[in-house]
């Protein structure tokens, strides 16, 4: 059997750059089917091979006869039989295959599907702390979401072999170090849930920052992350931070269409056309935040979601509830004192108490590694501009341009720097 070059479970037949709906069904259902197959076979590679074989059969059969009522169960049954055939053909069976044979022949049809737990098992395995955060993200996108390494590489702006290597190393470690395929016990959940949420948020951030249209609308990691978060909330309704993460992503994503102009250039929150915001998504996020904050277990995602909802509720930039946002950032900073939180708090404080106050909050970061972050300089520059310190502002924008940042941010900083000159004259 050839392992190299086989297509991913979610391999697409591209027609006119559009997603084939059948392939999309297969990609989305594939994650669940794979989760079940990994439990039954005890091996990610074997499970992927079996799923791939089943997808080949499904693509023909479904195009001819239509998609069955329960495509996931259909795929599972076919994949299970394919794997059984394969084990039967093998002359020498290792104990693992003997066990797999037992599990595969036990029960039939829908009996073998343990949907909720299989999905959680796969998620917790992909996001096991023994794997690097980069590997966790890549593995989750590949196995749970069914994306190809090519798609993942494009969104993360890294070469495809790098993604392939991260995935294969992660799989090798799962096998060799025997990372278990299980849902953690309740007492382990707080520690184990953290990397899961971080992975989902990393998927979202990658999708959110990907230039619109970059991938021809084929791959939307932001939507995929929201789908995963909905799944987490459905599977673990008691975990407040799962709800917080979902709300945060919904409220942030709601502003996505307004974040860039027709030319694809970044538009600041203050200048966004708020009629382009997705009101339904903002309302859903706000309802989630309201309900989850009442549980009295605030966490970083819930607080950020609350902030995003306050922005979403504001009819104009000037009408934003800045005092409340500044207060929330202060709470956030008490528990998670990161430079990103500090810079965001400074922006909110500047709206409440003036740019001088904002600048004072940034002064604590002078000489810190944050000086390598372009948005720190960009915030400084904006405060200085508002204070009429044009030369200092221009210096800050130049500092920002000296930091690593993407092309869209670079063009934005250059435009700001240029407009500064005009204001000055």
């Amino acid at each position, binding site marked *: 059997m050839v392992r190299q070059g086989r297509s991913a479970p979610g391999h697409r037949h591209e027609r006119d750059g559009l997603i084939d709906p059948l392939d999309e069904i297969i990609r989305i259902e594939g994650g669940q089917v794979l989760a079940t197959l990994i439990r039954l076979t005890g091996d990610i590679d074997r499970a992927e091979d079996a799923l791939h074989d089943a997808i080949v059969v499904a693509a023909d059969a479904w195009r001819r006869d239509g998609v069955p009522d329960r495509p996931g169960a259909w795929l599972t049954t076919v994949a299970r039989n394919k794997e059984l055939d394969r084990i039967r053909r093998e002359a020498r069976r*290792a104990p693992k295959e003997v066990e797999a044979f037992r599990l595969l022949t036990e029960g039939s049809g829908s009996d073998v599907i343990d949907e909720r737990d299989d999905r959680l098992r796969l998620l917790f395995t992909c996001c*096991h702390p*023994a794997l690097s955060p980069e590997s966790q993200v890549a593995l989750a996108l590949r196995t749970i979401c069914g994306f190809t390494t090519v798609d993942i590489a494009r969104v993360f702006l890294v070469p495809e072999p790098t993604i392939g290597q991260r995935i294969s190393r992660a799989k090798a470690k799962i096998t*060799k*170090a*025997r*990372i*278990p395929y*299980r849902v*953690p016990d309740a007492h382990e959940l707080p520690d184990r849930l953290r990397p899961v949420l971080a992975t989902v948020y990393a998927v979202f951030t990658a999708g959110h920052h990907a230039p619109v249209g970059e991938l021809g609308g084929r791959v939307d990691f932001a939507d995929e992350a929201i789908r995963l978060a909905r799944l987490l909330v459905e599977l673990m309704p008691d975990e407040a931070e799962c709800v917080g993460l979902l709300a945060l992503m919904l409220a942030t994503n709601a502003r996505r269409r307004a974040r860039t102009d027709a030319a694809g250039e970044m538009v600041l929150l203050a200048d966004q056309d708020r009629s382009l915001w997705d009101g339904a998504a903002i309302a859903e996020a706000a309802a989630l935040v309201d309900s989850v904050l009442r549980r009295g277990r605030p966490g970083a995602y819930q607080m950020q979601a609350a902030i995003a909802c306050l922005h979403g509720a504001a009819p104009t930039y000037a009408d934003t509830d800045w005092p409340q946002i500044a207060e929330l950032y202060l709470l956030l900073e008490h528990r998670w004192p990161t430079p990103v939180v500090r810079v965001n708090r400074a922006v909110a404080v500047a709206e409440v108490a003036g740019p001088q106050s904002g600048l004072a909050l940034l002064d604590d970061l002078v000489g810190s590694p944050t000086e390598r972050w372009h948005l720190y300089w960009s915030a400084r520059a904006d405060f200085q501009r508002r204070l009429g310190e044009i030369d200092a502002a221009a210096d800050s924008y130049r500092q920002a341009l000296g930091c690593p940042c993407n092309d869209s941010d670079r063009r934005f900083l250059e435009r700001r720097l240029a407009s500064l000159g005009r204001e000055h004259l």
Partner: protein
Amino acid sequence: MPRYAALIYGAEPSGESDPELWGKIMAEYMHFGEVGGAAGVIGGGEALHPTTMATTVHVTGGAKGGDVIATDGPFAETKEVLGGFYLLDCKDLDEALSWAAQIPGAWYGRVEVRPVIDMSEMG
């Protein structure tokens, strides 16, 4: 049962050590030995003399038969050195990590957990 090596890294013990602290550490290791032994998890282990007692051997030329070069000291000069190890028999990594977290070296330093290669599975 899969086997894991729990490699215990920490600061090299200095010349004049506090006997009270040593007594405490020894008691903690004794406790781990008792609990781990009773659970049948500990498949072996040793404590090592300090790296001042170490000699590193290298055969030159990248092939058998080269010159044997022995040098005083550990393979790598680092602040945190390998001080000892346990062999842990656990069903999976999660179990191994939970036992490793009970080794006193995990709070005095770090414990690296590595799966041991099962030679019977090597084709």
